[in-house]
């Protein structure tokens, strides 16, 4: 060994190496001691556990968070439910066990077996077979317990809905995690996950964190004792902006018709109700759904899985006249004092364009044209204003793009323009396109939620809100996990006088003998616009008269002097907006302004 001289501090250097060695030695000693403890002191016991592989792990499912309405009423709740599970390792003969279970519970054996296709035969993890067992089924399983090695009945909390179809699209459904979600990680097979609506959007918060139990089991797989238990962390509560009472009233008002109702607060973009019909029975999705039910829902021509309020894209029809009027006034190409004719048919490009009424109303002001929803007037006005100004105004009102709720599958509708048509369809824009656009027909489409947002702009004087569905998320102990403030997406550049004018004209639609008189309620000043959108070319004059295959719209807000609520009704293939949609909106308004209506109804 050569201690070299001439180093600056050789002695200190060596001392430090020795200290390093001592440090490492301490590590070795600690590990040696732990090995002795594991293998010699507790070796016997651990060997016994390993012999039979007697440790079982069981998840303790975290109860899902509750969705509340704006007044703190629950929109959905939990109840305990029984879940049937099998631990493959404990089932001596898995196929025989499944066969027996299938017979006992009347389940298709093939589907049970399918659940084990991706699970190793000696897996120690329980595989959930069936959720929502009845007490009777549970007792049948318990009776046969000894013939069913590896079978376990777990208690989990499960979703309970106030009524089977209440707010089905909005809340969404909860289902076992799909293979695609599993591949993305963080979830385990058999976990329940929100698959649509708010359940999906807020799944991270609602889900909570599962706990687990490590148990020692006997040779039959029956638990002897719990070795360790980790309590689950319950999911957080989500406080929505929905008003349960209004949601119920809107669902009731729409009745059996296919369509959608959106209720929004124009002062902050809060969505108070979001209805889509037909709805699907939410709780049916909870458990493993049988194929026939699934197929019937997917293939149903009424498309119950489609959330018409955000995923349905429809021609706005005459609702769009509001935007054409706004573009005309704002560009100053037309004033409230100018007049245009309103014939029953109007010839352009060698073709007759009809009004929906059968008589000539003579020259009208814009105010009157909106009130009577005169098509032939608006054809001419649209040509005057031009398609660019109209489509720009439509975009300023938030059309042509999703509103940004984050709900899955939200669509953006379409605002056509000459530039868009050239780009997307490689086709020239014709004057006929402008004519169709002027009354909200042709290529333009909107979703009911977009309509609510654009009516809110008219109502509140220019603020385009991002629709808000959830106000905040709170943990069980009350700590705030997230809060979503109201977001003003943009301020529409429209002169206040223009919006004032529109509000007056829309008031006249309902209260001054216009097309929307079906929505009138004493005591509440409602302003609105009807829309009747053709869904196909008329083949005969008789069909033109009947119009029972048209989409009916009514979009309104109230009270006019201080708008607090926007109601949009869309009824699919139901008839005229004024006849079908306006009375539905009336019912919704009546429910919202209950006290005012009652007060107005009192004598004296």
């Amino acid at each position: 060994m050569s201690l070299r001289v001439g180093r600056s501090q050789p002695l200190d250097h060596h001392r430090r190496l020795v200290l390093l060695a001592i440090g490492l030695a301490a590590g070795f000693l600690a590990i040696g001691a732990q090995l002795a403890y594991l293998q010699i002191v507790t070796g016997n016991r651990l060997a016994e556990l390993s012999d039979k592989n007697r440790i079982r792990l069981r998840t303790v499912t975290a109860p899902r968070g509750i969705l509340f309405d704006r007044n703190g009423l629950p929109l959905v709740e939990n109840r305990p439910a029984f879940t049937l599970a099998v631990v493959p390792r404990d089932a001596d003969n898995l196929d025989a066990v499944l066969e027996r279970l299938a017979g006992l519970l009347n389940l298709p054996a093939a589907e049970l077996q399918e659940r084990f296709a991706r699970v190793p035969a000696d897996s120690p993890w329980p595989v959930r077979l069936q959720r929502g067992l009845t007490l009777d089924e549970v007792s049948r399983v318990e009776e046969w317990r000894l013939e069913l090695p590896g079978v376990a009945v777990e208690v989990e909390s499960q979703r309970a809905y106030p009524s089977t179809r209440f707010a089905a699209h909005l809340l969404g459904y909860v289902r076992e995690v799909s293979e695609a979600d599993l591949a993305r990680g963080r979830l385990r097979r058999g976990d329940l996950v929100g698959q649509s609506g708010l359940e999906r959007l807020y799944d991270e918060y609602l889900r909570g964190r599962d706990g687990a139990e490590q148990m020692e089991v006997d040779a039959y797989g029956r638990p002897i004792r719990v070795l360790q238990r980790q309590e689950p962390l319950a999911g957080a509560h989500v406080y929505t902006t929905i008003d349960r009472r209004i949601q119920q009233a809107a669902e009731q008002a729409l009745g059996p018709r296919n369509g959608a109702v959106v209720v929004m607060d124009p002062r902050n973009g809060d969505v108070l109700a979001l209805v889509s019909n037909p709805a699907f029975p939410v709780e049916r999705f909870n458990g493993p759904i049988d194929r026939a039910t699934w197929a019937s829902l997917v293939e149903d021509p009424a498309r119950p899985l489609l959330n018409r309020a955000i995923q349905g894209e429809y021609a706005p029809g005459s609702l769009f006249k509001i935007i054409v009027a706004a573009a005309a006034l704002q560009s100053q190409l037309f004033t409230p004092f100018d007049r245009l004719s309103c014939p029953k048919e109007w010839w352009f490009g060698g073709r007759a364009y009809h009004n929906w009424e059968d008589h000539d109303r003579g020259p009208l002001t814009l105010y009157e044209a909106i009130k009577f929803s005169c098509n032939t007037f608006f054809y001419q006005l649209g040509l005057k204003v031009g398609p660019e100004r109209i489509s720009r105004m439509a975009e300023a009102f938030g059309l042509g793009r999703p509103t940004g709720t984050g709900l899955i599958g939200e669509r953006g509708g379409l605002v056509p323009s000459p530039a868009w048509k050239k780009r997307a369809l490689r086709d020239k824009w014709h004057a006929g396109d402008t004519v169709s656009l002027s009354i909200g027909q042709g290529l333009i489409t909107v979703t009911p939620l977009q309509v609510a947002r654009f009516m809110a702009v008219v109502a509140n004087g220019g603020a385009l809100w991002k629709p808000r569905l959830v106000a905040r998320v709170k943990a069980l102990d009350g700590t705030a996990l997230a809060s979503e403030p109201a977001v003003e997406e943009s301020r529409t550049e429209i002169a206040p006088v223009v919006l004032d004018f529109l509000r007056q004209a829309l008031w006249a639609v309902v209260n001054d003998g216009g097309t929307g008189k079906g929505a009138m309620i004493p005591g509440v000043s409602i302003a609105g616009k009807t829309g009747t959108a053709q869904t196909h070319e008329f083949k005969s004059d008789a069909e033109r008269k009947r119009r029972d295959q048209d989409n009916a719209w009514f979009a309104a807000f109230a009270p006019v002097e201080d708008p607090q609520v926007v109601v949009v009704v869309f009824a699919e293939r139901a008839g005229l907006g004024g006849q079908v949609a306006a009375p539905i909106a009336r019912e919704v308004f009546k429910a919202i302004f209950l006290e005012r209506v009652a007060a107005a109804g009192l004598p004296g």
Partner: protein
Amino acid sequence: MFRIDRRLLLHFDWVLVALAALLIGAGLLTLGSLVPRLLMRQLVWLGVGVVGGLVLISIDYRTLARWAYVAYLGGLGLLAAVLVLGRAAQGARRWLSVGPFTLQPSELFKLILLTTVAAYLAARERERPGWDRVILPLCLVAPAFLLIVKQPDLGTALVLVPVVAALLFVGGARWRDLAILAGGALAAAPAFWFILRDYQRERLLVYLDPFRDPLGSAWNVIQAKITIGSGQLLGKGLFGGTQSRLAFLPERHTDFIFAAFAESWGFMGAIALLAVYGLLAMRGLEVAATARDALGSLLAAGATVLLVSQALVNIGMVTGLLPVVGIPLPMVSYGGSALLTALGAVALIENVRMRRFV
């Protein structure tokens, strides 16, 4: 450059090679008993590692140190490349594909960083140690550390900590500065917390408290404990390990291979394996103490701490003493990059040892 001096061969340390061979042998044996199909791949890596080690031995460590900064820059580039081009697996980007094999640059970078810091400290050895003795090496470490954390590969990043600490310590940093550094690191930990992404935080919390994730880490730990404990005094024999063979034990051929080994060979075997690491530590530090110059001493000490601290952390985690951090057992775990790195570290120690009189 590859001409080898006869005197060097004379001083070649067979004890070091024998210790490494024992560890590698134990690893191959265990791997062969658990997952035989992977044996061939590991043998190929072993071949590559031995050749690489011989090349490393044949170049004087002082020459290596001169190239350290170049290698350091290249290594940083490689780490950056991983983030861009790397193969992603299990939510992390750590690997570069080389034909059918994948390389984990963060593993190999440990050697480069070790050499670079040692070269820096050795160059300043004669000066009075001051603040810069601690700060400047840390400036070398920081960018690499951040790149590795970003992959994210917390295990590898954490292994750098004892190595750098040992180098600073042996390299003559003042006690006061080291104490301040340790205090500063503790104080900075909360700030570090905010840089992490949510799931990284979650993982860190699971490291600290495995029972946060009772179905993942906690399950691994309790199964590993049962596996080790059930080996008792003498073990169940090479093919008798029921726990590890029946796939009860997760990652049984990589990070948790020690558990499988301890099940087969019992307390005696486990202690023997531990002893081999202990002898390796003694030999490595002896090489550091008898090295010809400060550079050699630092290289040997750093490489020794690299190997031994990883072994201690790995076994500590498998036996339930430490939180679960995903790092392999040097020379025993399955995995190519880790084996190359470990052999490289052994080669560095040998390099210094051979040239102690030259």
